[in-house]
């Protein structure tokens, strides 16, 4: 038990300014305790309007059938599956930040984990809409559950990757939600105990489940978060792995390739971090949290982006190479005609993907660019566009010229209501995020407090810290062995 908290002076502070415990509470809870700004109201309105448009699009689809989506040949699925995989991918960074970085004890995760987890949950909700409404008769959705029935009983096909998806995504959603909510308990209690307004005390009192901050509760809380992190880490991997199995278990050229599982996971982390960057750069500005989500946080996330981007790059090139190395004519066709050939009908999407995901993130090798907000924001949007293209490339370029020439198609485009549905998920995502930013502590208060004395700017500059920094190893060890 180290009471003296130490961290090397070479590390930049993770909490700027001269914060103490109380100030952290004040700063982070400010948006909750004040009326929302004009900017928030405008953004929220736009999000709700998009959501309403989406709801109308869904209404059309449910009422008139999936013919509204032009799904009369395999390629017609392209748009919706792309959107599904894209959203699921985005929904990965949150749990990754929380779980893996908790296991690695990365202090910087405390600044962004809450928002990233929330983003995960919203993104998974958005992702779920696509397969659900794709069922057409959505009121029969419960057919995917294995329940005793009068049809035999005929069970669902447990060997189908699509059913694995049902289990994977519902588990992922549930576990992420539990992880997120259990982390919120202490912060809700903080809001409750500060509340001066009656309904706020009541509302957060109910939400806090009776949290008091007891040592025994903290002990169990920490054990719970550790195990949930330990469970979530393979879970994060498994979810996108299973999404990749949807493609890779088939025998379609360009889909059936063994690298898909880890490569999809890397891609998902990549796009998830990009989305976190986009959101956090805006949020920290609007909610005035620059001292908690510092340049250190942004730089470190950019490092993760360049790492995962490069891993994805190796995977792209491996695939391309193996398409040739396998000497399989179908693979060769998929990769060297449909994809890598810029002048084939969809060649542009392949090169768009390469440019956005592999080539452009390489600028983050340079520290100056990693710490540049404009560049980071621009790149984070670009990467999400690129990751959308990645899924588009995988799905469309493999399907538009598959084994069945009667399904071939050059001119594939989504219908208005498909686009409306996609926009609607943006509406849903941002509506949720705006509500979250207003009513929830955007940063995990208790967790930030636990790193304050180690990584806070104020404490890093204390006399005691300088002393520790200048101590010889012997003196330093002696000080710590006393505790």
């Amino acid at each position, binding site marked *: 038990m180290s009471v003296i908290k130490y961290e090397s*002076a070479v590390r930049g502070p993770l909490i700027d300014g001269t914060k103490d415990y109380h100030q952290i509470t004040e700063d982070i809870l400010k948006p909750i305790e004040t009326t929302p700004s004009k900017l928030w109201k405008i953004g929220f309105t736009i999000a709700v309007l998009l959501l309403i448009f989406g709801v109308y699009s869904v209404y059309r689809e449910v009422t008139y059938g999936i013919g509204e989506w032009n799904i009369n040949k395999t390629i017609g699925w392209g748009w919706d599956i792309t959107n599904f995989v894209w959203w699921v991918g985005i929904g990965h960074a949150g749990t990754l930040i929380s779980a893996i970085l908790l296991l690695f004890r990365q202090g910087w995760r405390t600044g962004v984990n809450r928002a990233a987890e929330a983003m995960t949950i919203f993104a998974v909700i958005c992702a779920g809409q696509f397969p659900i409404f794709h069922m057409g008769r959505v009121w029969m959705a419960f057919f995917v559950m294995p329940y005793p029935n009068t049809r035999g009983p005929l069970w669902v096909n447990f060997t189908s990757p699509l059913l694995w998806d049902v289990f994977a995504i519902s588990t992922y959603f549930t576990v992420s939600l539990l992880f997120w909510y259990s982390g919120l308990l202490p912060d809700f209690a903080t809001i409750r105990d500060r509340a001066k307004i009656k309904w706020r005390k009541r509302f957060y009192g109910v939400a806090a489940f009776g949290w008091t901050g007891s040592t025994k509760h903290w002990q169990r809380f920490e054990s719970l978060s550790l195990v949930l992190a330990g469970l979530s880490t393979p879970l994060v991997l498994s979810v996108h792995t299973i999404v990749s199995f949807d493609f890779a*278990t*088939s025998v379609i050229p360009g889909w*059936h390739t063994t*690298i898909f599982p*880890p490569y999809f996971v890397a891609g998902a982390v990549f796009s998830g971090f990009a989305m976190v960057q986009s959101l956090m750069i805006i949020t920290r500005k609007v909610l005035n949290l620059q001292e908690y989500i510092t340049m250190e946080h942004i730089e470190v996330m950019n490092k993760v982006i360049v790492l995962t981007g490069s891993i994805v790059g*190796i995977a792209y090139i491996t695939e391309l190479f*193996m398409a040739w190395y396998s000497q399989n004519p179908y693979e060769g066709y998929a990769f060297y005609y449909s994809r890598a050939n810029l002048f084939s009908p969809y060649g542009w999407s392949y090169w768009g993907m390469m440019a956005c995901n592999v080539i452009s993130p390489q600028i983050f090798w340079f520290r100056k660019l990693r710490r540049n907000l404009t560049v980071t924001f621009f790149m984070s949007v670009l990467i999400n566009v690129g990751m959308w293209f990645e899924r588009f490339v995988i799905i469309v370029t493999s399907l538009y010229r598959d084994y069945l020439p009667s399904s071939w198609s050059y001119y594939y485009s989504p219908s208005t209501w498909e686009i409306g549905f996609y926009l609607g998920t943006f509406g849903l995502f941002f509506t949720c995020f705006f509500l979250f930013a207003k009513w929830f502590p955007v940063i995990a208060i208790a967790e930030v407090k636990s790193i304050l004395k180690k990584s806070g700017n104020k404490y890093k500059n204390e006399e005691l810290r300088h002393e520790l920094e200048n101590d010889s190893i012997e003196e*330093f060890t002696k000080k710590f062995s006393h505790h």
Partner: protein
Amino acid sequence: MATYSNTFEQSAGNKKWGTILTGIGILTLLAGIGLLGFSGDEHSKTRFWAGLLQNSVYFLLVVNAAMFFLCATTLGFAGFTISFRRVAEAISTLVPVFGVLALVVLLAIVFTDQTHIYHWMDTVTRENDKIILGKSGFLSKPFFVIWTIVAVGGWTIFGAKMRKISREADDTAMDTETAKKWLFKNSVHASLFIVCFGLTVASTIPWFWLMSIDAHWYSTMYSWYVFASTFVAGMALIALYIIYLKNQGHLPFTTKEHLHDIGKFMFAFSIFWTYLWFSQFMLIWYANIPEETEYFRIRMHGEYRGLFWLNLILNFVTPFLLLMKANAKRNYTIVTFAAVVIIFGHWLDFYLMVAPSTMKAHGSIGWFEIGVAIGYVGLIILLVGRGLSKSPLVPMHHPLLKESIIHHT
């Protein structure tokens, strides 16, 4: 604090055991050359080269994984590794030695035309097999040789540079600004190594050295799978040396907290390896394309059936059950046992990559394979000991050393 020595002197026992085991390896090699290598029997000859290939590639990639670990943690600005990073450095000093040994084996296989190992080198096959012919742009002797030399050279040079920079933290204290610059220099060279590693171990090198044994077969996952396999074994080797040095009274700042983290790495990457194993296997099993299933057919049925499942038991079930509990990762005996199982298990994994395709139904793990492996173990004992004695065991002025001292899981 008790007195401790920051320098390691290779004990007589260490040298003795190293020499004995290396001796066994050399004797095995000589016997192998006589009985197998120059035997007229094709099976024996193939067994000779297959055994050498498996051992030399495996142990080279394992010691190279130590440098990968160092570079990855350097790029991540990890503090906890500092108190034992010299252990990983010492292990990585074996890369040039094992690299040369692997080079000799690989070049010998190529230049003496061991077509039972690399089927694609056979000139008759090359002309008549459309697929092999189509790949000949990649599977060609000159390319193979050049790329092998480039890879081994790259790991050696970038690794040596990393170790050299590390020595700068031995004697003089750094102020914060110098320390920042020095860490930046570290990270630049670490990233050079990582890029080199990505272009070799995580992609091309396993294709050349191992996957091309089954010249028709291909799997995009293969290289990452090989990487996972050797990385776990590399972490296990680091754990073994930490425990050895702790028992010798060295590494005062490395505590059970650090061992706990190494244990976590062993645990997590054992699961990661299993994940890759499963994904590769399941996808090929599920799609059931004959060109692909061939690889597993020969391994799952017949001679190798037992080893195939043993591989999973040793590399997944054992570390999973042994290292799951937090206290187990802090227990010297359990971690030692798990590490030995992991190192042997992945050696077996490499055996399963090499032997079934080269030896077909005639493979067996016998005196030769084990003898060569013992020789490699002897070399590791001798040379890691020497590597450890070459530099202080703890870089006393490393700017992140204090973080490592107070490291707490």
